[in-house]
């Protein structure tokens, strides 16, 4: 990690998890990072001419085109004989799992030498908190309101990590801004691999999640510790858990401290717990699970 700051003076809300994910990845990659940011909070808060907050080369792409612009940048720089660079994209959950999934899938299929990082704040935050396919079950957004009949989002969170892995990608990982050393190791590891790499980092948004600005790191750590967000890697056809939670506790406290889940009933929470438990049953049977951090 370098001491230089590459994402500075940005206009993200105080305590923004996404901005921490971008900042830390750039500190791992250093000035050789050539960044692509589609429409979304990180481009909106980073490029407000004349306030330009990326100190490395960075460009805004179309909303759907993060991966295709990365492909173009990688090919272009290579054609110019430049070798010491990492083409890295930072796209939101909507930009990744909804509108950008086709370009991403194509890049993985061609095994383009790019690093794609999805900072997941679990909704379209920049346009005012609309549901994406990565919004979890039960979350209240402006398009999935909470009322008597519908308790927020009715659909489960799309499993982007395994969808990407199912392409047979060179490297995929999940991460959390609550476990920065693990995230940094994964960014470093990905940058040393040739081919397509994907990292999915959970990055709480105080504004959209209904949490205080000083809670985003803590909530991101808690999500891992209570088994809701699984830290994992996929490489050479194998799935492995990076950090295994000590136990699978009740989710009442973790869920209820977030404003977006305030309306959930005990039954709703029991359902989330049962979904989590069956996921871990599967993981324990089929994935490599070692206690402690990644080696």
């Amino acid at each position, binding site marked *: 990690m370098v001491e230089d700051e590459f994402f500075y003076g940005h206009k993200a809300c105080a*305590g923004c998890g996404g901005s*921490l994910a971008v900042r830390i990845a750039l500190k791992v990659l250093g000035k050789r990072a050539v960044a692509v940011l589609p429409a979304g909070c990180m481009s909106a808060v980073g490029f407000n001419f004349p306030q330009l907050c990326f100190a490395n080369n960075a460009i805004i792409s179309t909303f759907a085109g993060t991966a295709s612009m990365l492909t173009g940048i990688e090919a272009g720089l290579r054609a110019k004989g430049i070798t010491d660079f990492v083409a890295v994209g930072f796209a939101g959950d909507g930009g990744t799992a909804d509108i950008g999934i086709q370009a991403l899938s194509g890049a993985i299929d061609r095994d383009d030498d790019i690093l794609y990082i999805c900072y997941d704040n679990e909704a379209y935050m920049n346009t005012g908190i609309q549901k994406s396919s990565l919004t979890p079950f039960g979350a209240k957004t402006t398009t999935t309101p909470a009322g008597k009949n519908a308790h927020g989002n009715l659909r489960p969170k799309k499993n982007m990590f395994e969808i990407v892995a199912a392409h047979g990608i060179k490297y995929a990982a999940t991460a959390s801004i609550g476990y920065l050393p693990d995230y940094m190791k994964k960014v470093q590891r990905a940058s040393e691999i040739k081919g397509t790499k994907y990292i999915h980092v959970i990055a709480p948004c105080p504004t959209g999640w209904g949490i205080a600005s000083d809670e985003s790191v803590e909530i991101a750590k808690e999500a891992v510790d209570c088994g809701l967000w699984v830290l994992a890697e996929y490489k050479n056809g194998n799935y492995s858990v990076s950090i295994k939670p000590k136990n699978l506790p009740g989710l009442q406290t973790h869920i209820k401290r977030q404003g977006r889940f305030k309306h959930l009933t005990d039954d709703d929470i029991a359902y989330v717990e049962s979904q989590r438990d069956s996921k871990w049953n599967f993981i324990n049977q089929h994935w490599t699970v070692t206690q402690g951090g990644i080696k």
Partner: protein
Amino acid sequence: MKPHLRNLKTKWTLQDYPDSTAYEAGYLTSKNAGWRSVRPVIDAEKCTGCLQCYLHCPDGVIFKSGKVVAIDYDFCKGCGICGRICRLKAIKMEVESK
């Protein structure tokens, strides 16, 4: 090295605008200090320089200063993450006076 604040020109002529959509990286013309209602204050006696606050600051405004750390108040937003992450309670969040 980190981007620094420049003087924002008040009068722009056509020549001042970029002739393409590219411009200098890390070009800052405005502070974020006004966003703050509380400010983190470091107790240099308690701080061991473990750098956990430096690592977790979303704005990257904490930097090493000798054996301890200091804060770039021009860009700190007062989110409080640093205060919460510091196990030694060496950061106190104080109400902004002005």
